[in-house]
């Protein structure tokens, strides 16, 4: 076809990707709005290896060309991810939009990417030469800045199978549907034997990339809930000092206030 390649297998897709200057096309919902001129697309929606949701010992592996609608129908996708996916735009967009595309578009507003950040997800990137597995925060570097080589494709998102049960998720959009996030927040909490083992907090749509501060999180790790409570105000202040937000459809001040409110609420929800 003119200006496009349809790959029937991952192998074929990687060969095309290596041989030609192509833009990977999964769902099209961002690319077609961008409407870049003079490009060639590599159509990935028929690559079976990218369409699977699989579970192994450690991870739920979501193929890059899996759509949000498909994920919502899967029993294997964690509830937190489903909640975020269900809030994306509207049915027609969820029918087309994919996990890989959400990442590939390189926007901090991407609702599924927020969950990947808070969940410490990994990505499997593949090329003709092989594959590598990277942490999402090492991959997703800033607006339209991704650690993706010209011959690579995102193959899978590896979401930890466990540990995402206790969470807070909030999306603030401009309306109840068809809403691009203005602020999004996800927090994941876990405790074992009375000690906090995880207190991850990620903020979307407020800066060039999804924000997460693991060093601040670490101040609460290993603490009891009561000990954490005593540290709460310092912890919140550390976030308030660190977060430098950008303005977009709403002001930076608005975003900051919402982020701090939601962060505080997240802690409160888990007794801190």
């Amino acid at each position, binding site marked *: *076809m*003119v*200006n*496009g*390649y*349809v790959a029937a297998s991952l192998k074929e897709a990687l060969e095309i990707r290596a041989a030609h200057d192509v833009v990977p*096309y999964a*769902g*099209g*919902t961002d*690319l*077609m*709005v961008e*409407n870049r001129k003079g*490009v*060639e*697309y590599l*159509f990935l*929606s*028929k690559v079976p290896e990218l369409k699977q949701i699989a579970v192994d010992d450690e991870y739920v592996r979501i193929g890059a060309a899996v759509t949000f*609608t498909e994920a919502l129908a899967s029993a294997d996708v964690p509830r937190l991810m489903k909640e975020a996916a269900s809030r994306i*735009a*509207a*049915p*027609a*967009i969820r*029918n*087309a939009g994919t996990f890989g595309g959400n990442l590939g578009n390189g926007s901090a507003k991407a609702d599924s990417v927020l969950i990947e950040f808070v969940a410490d997800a990994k990505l499997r990137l593949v090329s003709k030469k092989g594959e590598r597995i990277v942490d999402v925060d090492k991959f997703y570097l800033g607006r339209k800045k991704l650690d993706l080589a010209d011959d690579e494709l995102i193959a899978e998102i590896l979401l930890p199978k466990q540990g995402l049960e206790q969470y807070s998720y909030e999306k603030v959009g401009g309306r*109840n*549907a*068809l809403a691009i996030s203005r602020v999004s927040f996800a927090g994941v909490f876990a405790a074992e034997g009375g000690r906090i083992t995880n207190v991850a907090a990620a903020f979307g749509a407020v800066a060039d990339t999804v924000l997460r501060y693991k060093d601040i999180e670490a101040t609460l790790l290993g603490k009891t809930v009561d000990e954490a409570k005593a540290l709460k105000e310092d912890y919140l202040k550390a976030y308030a000092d660190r977060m430098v937000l950008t303005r977009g459809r709403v002001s930076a001040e608005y975003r900051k206030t919402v982020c701090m409110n939601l962060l505080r609420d997240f802690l409160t929800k888990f007794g801190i």
Partner: protein
Amino acid sequence: MADIRFTLNGKEVAYGGSATDRLLEVLRNEYRCTSVKCGCKEGECGACSVLIDGTLLNSCCVAMGAVEGARVVTMEGFRETERFAALDKAFGELSAVQCGFCIPGMVLAAEALLSKNAHPTEDEIREGLSGNLCRCTGYNAIVNAVANAAKEGNGLW
């Protein structure tokens, strides 16, 4: 170069243009499916909704290469079905059509919803139609019409 082959409203067609062309524009210009309306070209209004392999999509956000081998249905095809007749009747009885511009897309969104969920609740209808903007009706008549079609058209979905 090979054409892009797909079925459009049950008929096999071959498109020789660019794989990056918008399905919306190709449907309107090349195949004269003018029921498919252009409201925004950004996936934000639903006026260009079509069914691709039974799934609701915004045709403005679909590149031609992505429809290779697919079944594309627009209102030109859907209006020949019994399911359309049930929706048509329900929309007509409640005067749910005002300016009409959103309506072909809205009806296809209703079809996509009912084909997955034959007896939706009001909330589910509102969710199913949430990507289709209508500026005229305030949506109540449309939501009620879809509910009535589901009830009256029992067995069709």
